């Protein structure tokens, strides 16, 4: 799981162009939206594309997405259980 969390951090930094940030700067349990990284709705769309492109996961339910994207750790948990590639 630790390896997947680090991989996700790197992918998020690249996809969202989080300049000057390293995986070590992201707390896996910190909120991604609002507080923490302070991501916005466009970032949410980018994360949905990232999930499908990298792990073959299609997210259709917005309510589900809110829970999955609450932190890097929650994304890693969902990916580990639902990944298609």
């Amino acid at each position, binding site marked *: 799981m630790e390896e997947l969390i680090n991989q996700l951090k790197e992918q998020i930094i690249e996809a969202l*162009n989080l*300049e*000057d940030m390293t995986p070590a700067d992201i707390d896996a349990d910190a909120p991604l939206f609002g507080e923490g990284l302070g991501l916005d709705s*466009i970032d949410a769309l*980018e994360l949905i*594309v990232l999930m*499908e492109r990298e792990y073959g996961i299609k997210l259709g339910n917005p309510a589900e997405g809110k829970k999955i994207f609450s932190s890097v750790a929650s994304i890693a948990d969902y990916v580990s259980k639902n990944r298609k590639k």
Partner: protein
Amino acid sequence: MNKCYIISGSCLHDEEADVRKYVTPGEARRMCRILKRAVYTSFEALRHSGIECPDAIITGTAMGCMENSEKFLTDICRNGEQLLKPTLFMQSTHNTIASMTGILLKCHGYNMTYSQGGVSFTSALLDAWLQIRAGEINNALVGCHDELTDAIRKIRHAAHPEIAPSDFREASAAFMLASEPLGDKPIEVEKVIILHSPDPKKLESAITSMNSNVIFNSDDSYCTDADAEGICSALETLSAQANYMESALVVTRAGNSVSLIKLTLASPCGC
């Protein structure tokens, strides 16, 4: 009829913009190169004008955010129209530049983008000039932004084999126009004319009738925004040689179109 003055300006040529001077890293992270240059020149022009929020934002761009457009179209082809990045979609429209500037400035005024090839900037300038002279607005941020990608350089080289791909220039410029002059050497935009497929005699006559001390000829074969680049050169010359010349005419040839912009040194009182 009001007069229209250029009260400040900022130009960049083939260089990166230090956009973090004006926006936070969070605001800058999604900006592509052309947006950073546009924001930098716009904020520089605003800072020098002393105006925080303009009445209007009017932008000229021939090709818009070309780099992002190429990436977006490439993704469409490679990914079978799936998994497209929303940021690239948002930033591949021509009016992204003016709207992004408006959002950052919280400017809810008139926001317009002109895409008219090599006379895009002159078209934007003409809009601002008409509105200021008519008293519709008191000031306007007028910009001109384009970028060259490797693919565009190759296409331009095919059209102009005499110019090496690396010799094509890209320009980004922003000016504050206002109905009130600023500084001790104010420059008035006296005339703005765009001629399409002009008869050579009619063009010569139009240039002669402008009665200018000096003529700046520019050609969009070399530079993406030659009309704006011509204005930058004319402003510098007029400011530096205010004791010797009173007016300058910028003549830009862009395909079948020719734009004429006459700048005149005015008195500081605007009278």
